[in-house]
């Protein structure tokens, strides 16, 4: 998407081979290399890229972590987990050559001397492997470790790119826990890396269907004229999970659904759905338009929050016929926890295009099924012909399925066969998996390649993150108030959330779409 990156690439042999900027060989240094993210996502993604021939062959991976370990032990552990989590089977020959480029660097994050030896190791690798001074630092460690890591990278001269090379940092979410902490985190990152060098990863944006929202909207002429307050009645975004906290109790108790999902993933999706057409496909042109959406979100007073936001927490219930404990009964959870495992919001974007169009969002754990979908509900047809004097016809609904079963469907009205004029809603359905036999790459694969190519389009910019937190903070502050805080509603595991969430739409004469 990034034309700047393409313009820099003047390799004439690349012409026609790929529609994207070529990733450059580099050393990928992963901080938190023994953690879950590295084993489940990052190394399998890098392996898959190598197996598909997408990873520049000179690329080297260095795992940076505290535990004592030898290169070979690290490689063996990674092989085992990659075999488990890779989207394609691991081939011994490919793994063997891939693993030759994987190294382990044992060091405490606070140990300055360890970064100097890392710098020496990287220089050596540059000479031996042809990584040419390009470095990609991946912060897969806990956020409280970011500061010493970034400070020490700077002190060792690793944050500064040498002439003709680059140095970039990928920051994993959460990007703070509120506006102040996000600003503080951004300050810490900025002390070592410029905004252009910083890639804030939100894996939702690496999903094929999230990227397809832009194609759907701006490569098809039919939707443009309808995509506004004149034709759209309302928009719904649902992100449902059947899972509970699953071993993330420590984090979840401090985050909750609003911080964990809405601040990043759901607001990012909303931006793609609601943004104005960018002037071009440059990363900043797209991000400029996205940030305008977040800035235009109507800010609520405390009273407004009680009427427009519903928070919930799952109680005991059943998922797929199996009993499921309530949130407070889960392991390592405070039995009096007030954390939100469900949020429903009624939002408004106060801009020219969307003024007065409600956006309903809901996200929750322990819901009856898992999936993320966006639905655009168009206004009713005028009640002058088929529906004259009778029941209103169903609305046309355009559904964008983000996961699973990625695709797009459109609901419309059709005459039922017969001599009578009976009308029935029908669905036109496009499934990625049906139309395209080729499996999509994992989001991390796409995003790692983008970072290596210098294309930040699918990464969050500093102002996007801060604006999102500014919006979320008003809600969190109201919930944390000692007096008159909005109620926390309970819902049984396996239900679609508390009744109050249904009332949010019922008050407007609407209902959540059947998911």
């Amino acid at each position: 998407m990034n034309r700047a990156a393409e313009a820099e690439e003047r390799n004439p042999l690349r012409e026609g081979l790929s529609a994207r900027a070529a990733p450059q060989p580099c050393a990928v240094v992963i901080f938190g290399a023994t953690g879950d993210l590295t084993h489940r996502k990052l190394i399998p993604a890098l392996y898959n890229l190598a197996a598909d021939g997408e990873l520049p062959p000179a690329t080297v991976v260095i795992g940076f972590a505290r535990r004592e370990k030898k290169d070979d032990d690290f490689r063996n552990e990674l092989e085992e987990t990659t075999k488990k989590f890779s989207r394609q089977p691991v081939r011994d020959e490919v793994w063997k050559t891939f693993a030759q480029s994987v190294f382990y660097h044992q060091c405490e994050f606070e140990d300055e001397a360890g970064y100097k030896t890392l710098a020496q190791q990287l220089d050596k690798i540059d000479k031996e492997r042809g990584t040419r001074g390009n470095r990609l630092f991946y912060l897969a460690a806990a956020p409280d470790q970011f500061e010493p890591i970034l400070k020490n990278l700077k002190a060792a001269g690793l944050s500064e790119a040498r002439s003709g090379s680059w140095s970039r940092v990928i920051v994993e979410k959460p990007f703070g826990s509120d506006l102040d902490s996000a600003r503080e985190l951004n300050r810490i990152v900025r002390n070592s890396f410029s905004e252009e060098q910083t890639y804030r990863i939100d894996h939702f944006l690496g999903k094929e269907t999230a990227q397809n929202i832009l194609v759907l909207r701006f490569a098809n002429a039919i939707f443009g004229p309808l995509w506004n307050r004149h034709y759209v009645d309302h928009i719904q975004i649902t992100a449902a999970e059947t899972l509970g906290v699953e071993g993330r109790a420590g984090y979840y108790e401090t985050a909750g659904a609003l911080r964990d999902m809405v601040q990043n993933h759901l607001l990012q999706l909303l931006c793609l759905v609601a943004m104005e057409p960018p002037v071009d496909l440059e990363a900043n042109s797209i991000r400029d338009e996205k940030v305008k959406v977040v800035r235009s979100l109507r800010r609520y007073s405390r009273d407004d929050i009680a009427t427009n936001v519903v928070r919930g927490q799952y109680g005991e219930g059943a998922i797929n016929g199996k009993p499921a404990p309530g949130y407070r009964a889960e392991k390592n959870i405070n039995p009096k926890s007030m954390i939100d495992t469900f949020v429903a919001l009624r939002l408004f974007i106060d801009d020219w295009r969307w003024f007065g169009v409600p956006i309903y969002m809901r996200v929750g754990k322990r819901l009856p099924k898992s999936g993320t979908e966006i639905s655009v509900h168009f206004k009713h047809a005028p009640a002058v012909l088929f529906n004259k004097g009778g029941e209103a016809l169903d609305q046309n609904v355009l559904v964008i399925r983000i996961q699973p079963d990625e695709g797009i469907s459109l609901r419309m009205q059709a005459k039922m066969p017969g001599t009578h004029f009976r009308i029935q809603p029908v669905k036109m359905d496009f499934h990625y998996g049906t139309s395209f036999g080729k499996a999509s790459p994992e989001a991390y694969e796409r995003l790692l390649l983008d970072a290596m190519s210098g294309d930040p389009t699918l990464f969050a910019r500093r102002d996007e993150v801060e604006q999102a937190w500014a919006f979320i903070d008003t809600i969190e502050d109201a919930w944390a108030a000692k007096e008159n805080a909005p109620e926390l509603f309970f819902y049984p595991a396996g239900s679609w959330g508390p009744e109050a969430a249904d009332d949010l739409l019922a008050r407007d004469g609407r209902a959540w779409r059947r998911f």
Partner: protein
Amino acid sequence: MPAETYSLGAPVELGKIDKELKKLWQEGEGAMTRASLVNLAVYSEESGSLEKNTQLVGKITEDHACRALVIYSDRAAKEDRVEAWVSAHCHVAHTGSKQVCSEQLSFRLEGPCAKLLPSIVFSHVDSDLPLYLWWQGEFHEPMNPQLWAWVDRVIYDSHDWRNFDEQMRFVEAAQREARQRIVLCDLNWTRLDRIRFALAQFFDHPASHHHFNSIESVDVKFAPGFKSTAILLVGWLAAQLKWKTDQPTMNGSCRFLAADNRKIDVELRQQDGPPVGAVAIRSAGIEFKVAPAECGDLLEISRGQAGEPANSQLMPAQSYDLADLMTQELLRGGAHRVYLRALNCVRQLL
């Protein structure tokens, strides 16, 4: 696991194809989803091709849902005969248990009926979808201008051609009929995809670009019968790096001139193995090498001082299986401008 076999399906009367197709879906067992992204017409004059192409289409539809029109034509037959069959190729989608099915309509046209080709194609394409025509073997007169006006992409394999220049004239005439709208897709060019990719990646870093100005020689090994593939590869390098032919082929070698009059010696050597074997580019004492790895379906790539051991890496190699080549070709979009440039650069050598 034994390879799946596909059949031509049920014979149908020519005028009842639509009805039979409808029946096929009504009587199908279990949940099936019909899918189609393109109309793929496969045309051949080789006897036995209907069965062979049915197997190929069966494999292609695993990755690329389409409405396939498989046509065998025998223009020399004395008796007029038209036969048709309908069938479906169903595969479990990669996302789950859903059966995704592509329709195949097969035709045998014999004698004067062979002229019916355009009308057969026109009557049975899935509306609003692009038409890809895979023409197997050589083109010949008469070329029906009506047909070309409908075709979006014509797929052929120049490797099979005996007279390249004559065949290209047919293709170009077809393109003129279609007012240059047809995209030319040569499977002989598709064969080079992975090797081109592997060679290109050596020069992704701007610091390697200086090598373009000091390339001294190129060695390409090719299997018997695949010299045209190797020449196309050289044509690609020459066209993209702006070389011009200096000396025509002499015993497998030729010479190109770079824009600065630098000479580049190209050696083409026949050797048993995959269609295109090892390729080495030498520049300023560095050898950039791509060679088939021992395991067969991977490429070993290395960069280092000529003659000295270098760190090697593996990349996926090209599959030369016809169904895989077609699948690869169908997944590509857009015009093949680079191909045409490469072709024009070495046309006199082909």
